[in-house]
């Protein structure tokens, strides 16, 4: 407890934002992993669940989790219907008490074990943003076939050439932000979907925020369906060209 006591005294608190839609099966598991990760590492934390009116009862499970882990650790910020990711962050942040915000997917593709590494990285370089990356170091993916890897690498290469963003993983959504930085970035970002995460990094560069990177393993959806169709690719390209012409 001595070590964890010291970390608490540092005064930093980490608010994890979990936007959910139909994650009834995954939510308890990701929360369990998060709680264990923070308990073992000793950092001060809270988990904010932003459920967009899931018909599968995600909110009800979240309420059970709140009873188990306490309403100081699990905060519920539900919304009536499915709205954009950017507004979910704004909505979740309104009641966040942490000075750092961690965003991640609730579908278990992002493992909480990387969070202590994000935090160490942030402290090491006093970064404004730490981004998880699948594309460098020991980072990687699980459950992707050759076609998916090819599309992902190809899209990443084109993006690197056109935007030179100074970060290797632009479409990933496992990141740590200073709270005020995230607030400023969300205000400026207009894109949706994959492009939203990309725009956040591009705008961050424009505003001269510093970005650190931590390699992560991305384990594709254990429960539920993964999405990457023709539509996603077209909207990605549109978004990329928009950023290319406007930033």
């Amino acid at each position, binding site marked *: 407890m001595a070590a964890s006591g010291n970390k608490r005294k540092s005064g930093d608190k980490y608010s994890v934002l979990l936007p959910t839609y139909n994650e009834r099966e995954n939510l308890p598991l990701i929360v369990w992993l998060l709680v264990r990760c923070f308990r073992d590492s000793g950092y001060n934390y809270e988990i904010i669940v932003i459920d967009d009116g899931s018909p599968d009862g995600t909110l009800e499970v979240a309420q*059970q989790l709140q009873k188990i882990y306490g309403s100081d650790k699990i905060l519920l910020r539900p919304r009536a219907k499915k709205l954009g990711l950017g507004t979910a962050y704004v909505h979740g942040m309104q009641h966040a008490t942490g000075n750092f915000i961690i965003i991640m997917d609730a579908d278990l593709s992002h493992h909480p074990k990387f969070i202590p590494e994000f935090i160490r990285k942030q402290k090491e370089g006093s970064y404004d943003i730490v981004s998880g990356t699948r594309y460098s170091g020991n980072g*990687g993916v699980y459950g992707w076939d050759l076609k998916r890897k090819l599309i992902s690498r190809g899209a990443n290469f084109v993006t690197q050439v*056109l935007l030179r963003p100074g970060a290797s993983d632009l479409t990933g959504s496992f990141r740590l932000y200073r709270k005020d930085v995230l607030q400023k970035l969300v205000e400026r970002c207009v894109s949706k979907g994959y492009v939203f995460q990309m725009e956040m990094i591009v705008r961050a560069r424009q505003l001269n925020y510093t970005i650190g990177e931590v390699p992560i393993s991305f384990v594709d959806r254990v429960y539920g369906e993964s999405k990457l169709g023709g539509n996603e690719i077209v909207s990605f390209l549109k978004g990329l060209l928009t950023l290319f012409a406007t930033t």
Partner: protein
Amino acid sequence: MTKLAEWLLALSVLGAAWVTLNFNLLGLDLPPPLQQLLWPLPVYLLVVFGCYSLATIGYRVATFNDCEDAARELQQQISEAKRDLALKGLKF
């Protein structure tokens, strides 16, 4: 300056340099071997860039880590989490 403007600027500078030398607008009178090299240079550069792109993407696809261990570890932790949550009274 937007990235688009940066690209356009760089391309027009290079294009202007190429036109100037290629059509001998400054009267430099480059030696014939250089002139022969200069004429198809844009196409050469394009081909080199294309090869570089394909090689880079191919290499990165081939070396994309498959995180088998991470997936196995996650499965174990999921079972552990389910047992523990059931004990704590969670109804799935």
